[in-house]
């Protein structure tokens, strides 16, 4: 279980302090939690803070009761936090199999590595030996990124906008991947998304706008207001950027 206590993140911009996150308090206990909200609201910053990529300027993070605020990226990864980037990273020379093997943390046969790729809808043998470089499309890289997280089998899998930059066909497949993950993955999934179909799978939805938690609840509680079908649009009317 992940707990965020009073997490803040400030940056200097034009010699002024700017609050990206303001006293975020959250407990991630459910199997599938989606974070949504307007662009620039601080969602990706929060995901990076959880993974240890960014250090909060205030507050504490607990994992299964242990304070991990000062732990670095590697230590958090070893404790069971995995992270799928919004913009997957390319590597000259490293192959898809190399990365899947590193993610699994143990030697993998080609067949075993292929299974992870098949789970994200890639025809595995076409990809397993390919370099993770510019020859792969954004959608292909995204799926490989997700396959790496699946291979890690961690307590908490964080996905930063997995739908960004992929086509509609790939997106439909992506939904199926997350539905399957929801059913099969033992740990928790924390996913940042703008997509209603992804939010619909979630056990809980968190709305973050203007660096603050504006809403937290089940999809039945959050979605109507988020989609402004309940007669109000409160998440977007209080200064969300």
């Amino acid at each position, binding site marked *: 279980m992940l707990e965020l206590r009073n997490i803040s993140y400030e940056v200097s911009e034009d010699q002024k302090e700017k609050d990206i996150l303001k006293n975020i308090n959250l407990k991630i206990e459910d199997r599938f939690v989606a974070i949504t909200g307007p662009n620039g609201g601080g969602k990706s910053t929060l995901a990076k803070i959880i993974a240890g990529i960014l250090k909060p300027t205030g507050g504490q993070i607990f994992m299964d009761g242990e304070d991990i605020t000062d732990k670095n990226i590697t230590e958090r990864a070893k404790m069971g936090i995995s992270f799928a980037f919004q913009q997957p*990273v390319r590597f000259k020379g490293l192959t898809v199999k190399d990365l899947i093997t590193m993610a699994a943390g143990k030697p993998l046969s080609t067949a075993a590595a292929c299974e992870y790729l098949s789970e994200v809808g890639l025809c595995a043998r076409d990809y397993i030996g390919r370099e993770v470089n510019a020859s792969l499309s954004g959608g292909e890289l995204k799926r490989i990124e997700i396959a790496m997280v699946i291979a890690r089998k961690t307590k908490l899998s964080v996905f930063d906008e997995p739908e960004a930059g992929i086509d509609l066909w790939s997106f439909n497949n992506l939904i199926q991947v997350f539905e399957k993950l929801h059913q099969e993955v033992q740990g928790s999934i924390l996913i940042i998304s703008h997509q209603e179909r992804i939010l619909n799978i979630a056990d809980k939805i968190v709305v973050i706008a203007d660096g603050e938690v504006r809403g937290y609840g089940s999809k039945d509680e959050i979605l109507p207001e988020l989609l402004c079908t309940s007669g109000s649009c409160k998440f977007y009317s209080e200064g969300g950027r």
Partner: protein
Amino acid sequence: MANVQLDAIQLNLLGQVADLHEVPEGAYNIRSNGQGIARNTTANIDIVTKEDKPGIDIYIKPGTKKESVHIPVLMSQTGLKDLVYNDFYIGEDADVTIVAGCGIHNGGSKTSEHDGIHRFFLEKNARLKYVEKHYGTGDGNGENIMNPTTIIEMKEGSYMEMDSVQIKGVDSTDRITKAKLGKDATLIIREKIMTHGKQVAKTSFEVDLDGENSSANVMSRSVARGSSRQEFLSKINGNNACAGHSECDSIIMDSSNVTAIPELTANHIDASLIHEAAIGKIAGEQLIKLMTLGLTEAEAEAQIINGFLK
């Protein structure tokens, strides 16, 4: 000659430069400390000692298929300067692999140097894969110097792949490769270099695309660490309807220095020539990605470099 005994140092060098852990099968010529110590020929591959200068001539009969030649050079005597001229004649329609390479173990304080001048003559439709590795080791403070020169002449329809690797222990190298390609000839060169400490590596390619529809692809990947220096020069001359591509990719670390100098000359309206060069440090996002998989920063760096030079 097949019963030649190699000591532990020689066997280590042989493993490093030729991936061999014993005297190879097939045709070979092993040179150790300036002397030929073992040779084997086959029905299709002859190896003859030059009479006018140090070195050998290797003759591969036309039509020879799926045979290989190993010609490693091993040096374990400090202070030795070895100069060798090897000429390779690849017959028409032959398809062979040649594995060369030089390993120096310098346990003393004097400079050890190997200069190898290799000339390749590919006849019509001949195919060659040429693998060359350079490796240095030793517990002394004497420098290891290797200066390989490769001259390639390719006739109509011939094809050559050249894989050149220098990963460790070579303090100074000046690598020169020159090629002339005839009609429909194809040349692919892949070079991988890593330098450490104060090592210096200079590599220079000059390719003349003389024949119609000839093509060349020169790819260099290198990693410069410590205060080492590297210089990459690539010159492609398109003298006919042809395609030429050269690519230099370097990772720069610590206080090292890398220079890439491309030169393309089109002397024909249908010459298509491209050069790409990229020099930069390891991207922070690459390190972070691998760290999110549980690797330490040092482990991530090693994986990125190993992959880059793989």
